[in-house]
């Protein structure tokens, strides 16, 4: 069994994001980066599947510049067997990423792909679905429970939907995207990262992959959300009702 896990390099979830003064993008000065937390959940699940089966190969892949090596090493330190870096320009939209991942999929021929349902930077939530469509594979998204069934030929997945947990079975090969409550990823310490340096990390130029990935979307401007105004303390319930009715006009 081989599991492909894409890892995206994103700003650390605890970082406070600042927008550049001209609104052209995010100010990354002094910002620390991390593996997209949803991807880390996907990798953790892959590792647990491997531990359960006793044998499986886990390949982590990242798309971007050399900085992504940091996140791939992190994935290797968590327990992935090898890493692939697809060298590409920074700004790629979900479709471009899906096309590149499709090419990686064809090259690696994994049993299935486990990836985060979305990345915490742009929150697009599209790459997994697009990848499944491009490859013509089944998909199970927002998975918070995962179980291999029928001799590891299918996965029974609990999906988090607005109405509750929906359980679906998906036949391999397939694309499975992970939600928050699937697991809690293991912690990687410095010696773990040092040890992972011995694991193979392959770099492939985008052109060698035979994909011409062009972003079809363009970010025009970014702006921070408006600052929250201070709340008002009301003394009585009547005053509250009055304000809701006459000022906020919601009742």
């Amino acid at each position, binding site marked *: 069994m081989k599991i492909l896990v894409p890892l995206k390099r994103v700003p650390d979830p605890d970082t406070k994001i600042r927008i550049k003064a001209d609104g052209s993008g995010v100010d990354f000065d002094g910002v620390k980066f*991390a593996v997209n937390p949803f991807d880390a959940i996907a990798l*953790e699940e892959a590792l647990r599947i491997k531990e359960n089966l006793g044998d499986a190969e886990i390949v982590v892949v990242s798309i971007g510049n050399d900085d992504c090596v940091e996140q791939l090493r992190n994935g290797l330190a968590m327990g992935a067997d090898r890493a692939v870096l697809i060298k590409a320009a920074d700004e790629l939209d979900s479709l471009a990423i899906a096309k590149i991942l499709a090419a990686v999929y064809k090259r690696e021929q994994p049993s299935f792909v486990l990836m985060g349902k979305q990345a915490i930077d742009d929150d697009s939530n599209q790459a997994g679905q697009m990848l499944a469509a491009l490859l013509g594979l089944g998909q199970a998204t927002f998975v918070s429970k995962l179980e291999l069934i029928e001799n590891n030929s299918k996965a029974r997945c609990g999906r988090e939907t607005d109405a509750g947990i929906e359980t679906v079975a998906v036949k391999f090969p397939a694309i499975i995207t992970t939600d928050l409550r699937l*697991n*809690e*990823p*293991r*912690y*990687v310490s*410095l010696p773990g990262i040092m040890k992972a340096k011995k694991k193979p990390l392959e770099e492939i130029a985008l052109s060698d992959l035979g994909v011409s990935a062009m972003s079809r979307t363009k970010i025009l401007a970014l702006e921070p959300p408006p600052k929250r105004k201070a709340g008002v303390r009301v003394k009585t319930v009547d005053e509250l009702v009055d304000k809701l009715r006459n000022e906020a006009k919601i009742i």
Partner: protein
Amino acid sequence: MQPTRETFGNIPHSSQIIFYLLTVVTMAVFGYGVWRRFKMWRQGTPVGIKELIVGNAQQIFAKLRPGLGRLLVEGLGQKRVRGRGLPSYAHIVMFAGFMMLFLGTTLLEIDHLSAGISDALKFHKGTYYVIYEFTLDIFGLLFLAGCIFFLWRRTRRPSSIGHKATDWYVLGSFIAIGITGYLLEGLRLAWQQPTGIAAHCSPVGFLIAKSFSGLSNDSARGAHLGVWWLHALLVFAFIAAIPYTRLLHMIVGPINLFLAQPVLGKLVPVSMEEVEKTERIGISAITHFNQQQLTSLDACMECGRCEEACPAFATDKPLSPKRVVQDLKGLMTLSLGTRTKTAGFPIPGLHNDTIRPETLWSCTGCSACVKVCPVRIDPLTLITDMRRNRVGEGELSGTAATALRRMQSSSNPWGLPAAERANWSEELGAPTAKDNPNFEVLYWVGCAGSYDRRAQRVARSVVKLLKSAGVNFAILGREEKCTGESARRLGDEFLFQELAQANIATLAKYNVRKILAHCPHCLNSLLKDYSQFGGEYEVIHHTQFISDLIQTGRLKIPASDGQGNGDAVTYHDPCYLARVNGIHEAPRDVLRTALGATSKPDFREMLRSREKTFCCGAGGGRMWMEEEPKKRVSTVRAKEALETGAKTVAVGCPFCLTMMTDGVAAQNGEARVMDVAELLVERLKI
């Protein structure tokens, strides 16, 4: 005629020869048993025992002195055996009896050997003999009394104490040795028939001899020989059994007292070079423990004091320090013993097979087990060393892992922006070291004081008090990072070292010598962890500093106006303050002043206080872990606090503040939980 008795009197020559042959056999069995254990201990990583005897006599003595001191005070003096009520006294009495009998037997043999050289060298006579006989008679009774107490206690099977079939043999044979000893004396007096002081100096034997008065001299002699052999065989069997039974602690306990690391709250650093060389971090196999640690496993005789003191065990967590030590001892015997090769079954691994990960993560690092161990076994270090490996192998996940990630990315476990670290002080205007480089003392605020809304109020109170007393102080502000204490106790040594080195560099930049901290965890780390990496500071707790300000009059305390609310107050001692660093009076001093407004301050002590305090549940990185609400350590402790009837629970640690607040709330208690500094600010109305 001088009072004396013949050594080996009434014992035929042939019996004497067999006796000495058996002595040799006994010593061989004993020696083999100890050597067998010793071979196991040696397979640990070296601790440089040989270096103890390198140098001139003065240097060697200086190196041996602390260990010898512990042997004297804690071994012979039984200092650490105290503290458990009746069983402690029983052990001391039994130990005194045993040692005196042992000494007596040794002296007798010396006398016998020297008399063999020349009659003039015989000293077992006259006044010496009288004192000797009388002393041994009395101490024999003490020995028997202790043994009988322990035999009785074993029949009641207290749960914390280990039970093995051989324990009955050990105590039974001790009692039999005592009784046959007295019988022997009685029978000897019956055939020897001494008079006057020579008879009365053995009061117990004299009483027994009276009951034998009907025996003819010959039958007394016959019975004497028979009992002598029984007594001798019992003693031989006991000596031979020492290394194979719980009695092993008689040998290994003192060895461990001599070798142990005596300071609480200290961990051994690991360097990246070591990790690269050994390709591992922490302990993943029994031989990775050091020689002293392996030795300490054999010192354990399962008295169970650690288990009774353990907050994790008390709240049904899968951890007992005694169990950890015993399980490791079992693994050591299985995997390093002489029979390992022929065992015929796979040797279990250390992690998972022997020690479960949940066991390791249950520890709050409160050090209670280390503090109460009579022979200085250190389960906490064993656990932390194993944790290091689990963290290094990526076995930690969940909220604690998130906290570590955040310490890495944001330099605080809450993951709040480093740039906002000093926001709490904005209104008060606490000067930073950058703006006020000539400060008298540096106030180390810590992550809780900086980011936790509740603990920020403590930090503000400290600043108010410092300002009110006109203290020239500074904070590091944004330049301060987490000390890394939680990371180190959780086992992430290198994250700790990274943070420590950054902080040490910052502290060096401002030439900091004296640090004031309101967090005992920061305090212990700055004091005992940082000194291992070149950061030497005088670190004091805010209650010590404030207590000093009060005593020197720098902090003006108004005379009592009787206006306080008069509520009962109790104080919860933080482990890392009271137990680990011995600071328990300063907080009480400040508290007394804080309560001084009332005409009748009502201060109530909890049952477990000062160095015997019970953990709040947040130490050892447990602050960052989830705990089942019904079995929380904090609930147990808060219950104890509420049982005093206190309406205010005072604390001296931001972690305790959080845990005790939760604990009180969990029981719908009405008490408020406050830092000592906050209560003083309340009194001073500043």
